[in-house]
């Protein structure tokens, strides 16, 4: 039998996932709206003093991003699991971790990247300006792929469950702690005019580590879930 090359299959899978997501725009918009709403609730819940808002902005925006990313996670393998496409993927001659990486990349393109696009708007709402906003975008650019990669492990473990949603948050949120600390720390430092290279370097290192290891764990988890 004549099988297409790995690179070909990889990009085909990536394209398929992105296309599928783009055809269901409503599902794409939900986490995004959630992100905006959560962040907009904080000024309502407390005294909307600009100085206070500026102080809490990095943490609030990042916690919002974390929750939005988690909400979007469920869809990563769900439909493929339901219609059996995931099982077919396991049967292909291609290494499963790489296919997983393609799916995660596609998922990030349609759920992580939009967070970056609305983040400047939220930054304005919370009086985050100038260099801090640039650093916020940089931290989101490094951090959101991490959220997708780590989250993929949790989704793969819970995909076979009917009500995996709450469990998923319990599995994934503790693992998100370092991302939150470094990313929000970088933005906070940028506001205070301090160096941010340390935190961004750590985020980059974590991303490199996660790209290497998370697909392996996700693939192992998928094999178990589909057993």
């Amino acid at each position, binding site marked *: 039998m004549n099988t297409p090359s790995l690179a070909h299959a990889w990009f085909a899978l990536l394209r398929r996932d992105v296309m599928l997501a783009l055809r269901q725009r409503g599902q794409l918009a939900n986490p995004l709206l959630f992100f905006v709403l959560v962040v907009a609730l904080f000024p309502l819940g407390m005294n909307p003093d600009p100085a206070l808002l500026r102080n809490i902005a990095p943490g609030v925006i990042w916690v919002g991003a974390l929750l939005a990313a988690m909400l979007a996670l469920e869809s990563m393998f769900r439909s493929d699991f339901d219609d059996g496409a995931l099982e077919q993927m396991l049967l292909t001659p291609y290494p499963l971790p790489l296919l997983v990486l393609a799916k995660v990349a596609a998922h990030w393109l349609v759920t992580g990247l939009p967070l970056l696009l609305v983040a400047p708007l939220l930054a304005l709402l919370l009086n985050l300006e100038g260099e801090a906003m640039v650093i916020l975008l940089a931290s989101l650019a490094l951090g959101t792929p991490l959220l997708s990669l780590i989250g993929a*492990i949790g989704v793969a*473990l*819970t995909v*076979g*469950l009917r009500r*995996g949603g709450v*469990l998923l948050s*319990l*599995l994934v*949120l*503790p*693992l998100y*702690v*370092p991302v939150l*600390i*470094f990313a929000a*720390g970088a933005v906070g430092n940028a506001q205070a005019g301090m160096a941010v290279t340390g935190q961004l370097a*750590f985020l980059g290192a*974590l991303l490199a580590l996660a790209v290497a*290891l998370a697909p392996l*764990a996700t693939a*192992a*988890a998928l094999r*178990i*879930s589909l*057993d």
Partner: protein
Amino acid sequence: MWAWLHRQGSPKRFYNWSGTLARWAGWGSLLLGVAGLYYALFASPPDYQQGESVRIMYVHVPAAWLSMFIYMNIAAASLVSLVWRIKVADMFAAASAPIGAWFTFLALATGSLWGKPMWGTWWIWDARLTSELILLFLYLGYIGLLAAIEERETAARAAAVLALVGVVNIPIIHYSVEWWSTLHQGATVTKFDKPSIDWTMLRPLLLMAFSATLFYVAVALRLARTELLRRERESQWVRELIDGRQGGGRR
């Protein structure tokens, strides 16, 4: 050597030796615990700074040690069960989880009780406290996943993957939290600085630590044995065992 170890991991052999070990560990834990409590509560001096509150430490420190030790045990057992497919290992990991979670909770609770008179607050966002709290969440996630999947073997393997992911993350979480709290808080309240701990205080601490470890061994083995019997209830040796227990009613 390996073959011998592997044989001890077979369900029937494990059931036989673990019963004896659990019994010895249980009695050992009780004896050491009574001795440890005696030294901790009566035969050790109050600390010159902490006063009588130092006695909380004789429970707190062993609990904190065990909370980490048990997670490492779970991860090691998970690795063994995933790589060599030894069923007993994943039963032991699953049995360890609730005990580990309780020790983590105990460490947090006693730490909080100690913190009120010492630091003047029930909780501070200190690095160690925070990572212990996150460890508790990791335990709860592990237990939650185990409970959520109905098929026991699948649940065990899924939880094993989660435990390994968690163990890779623990150092990352620990250092990120440490860095975070030193960045934000400046000088935190120093932990009890002891240049060299006196023998009268070290003795109850060690006794309590060994007692807690043996307690863990005894309870985890018993839980694993129960799980083993449940999973193997269809097998020949379990039936023979039960028949034997019932005074040979069927013979």
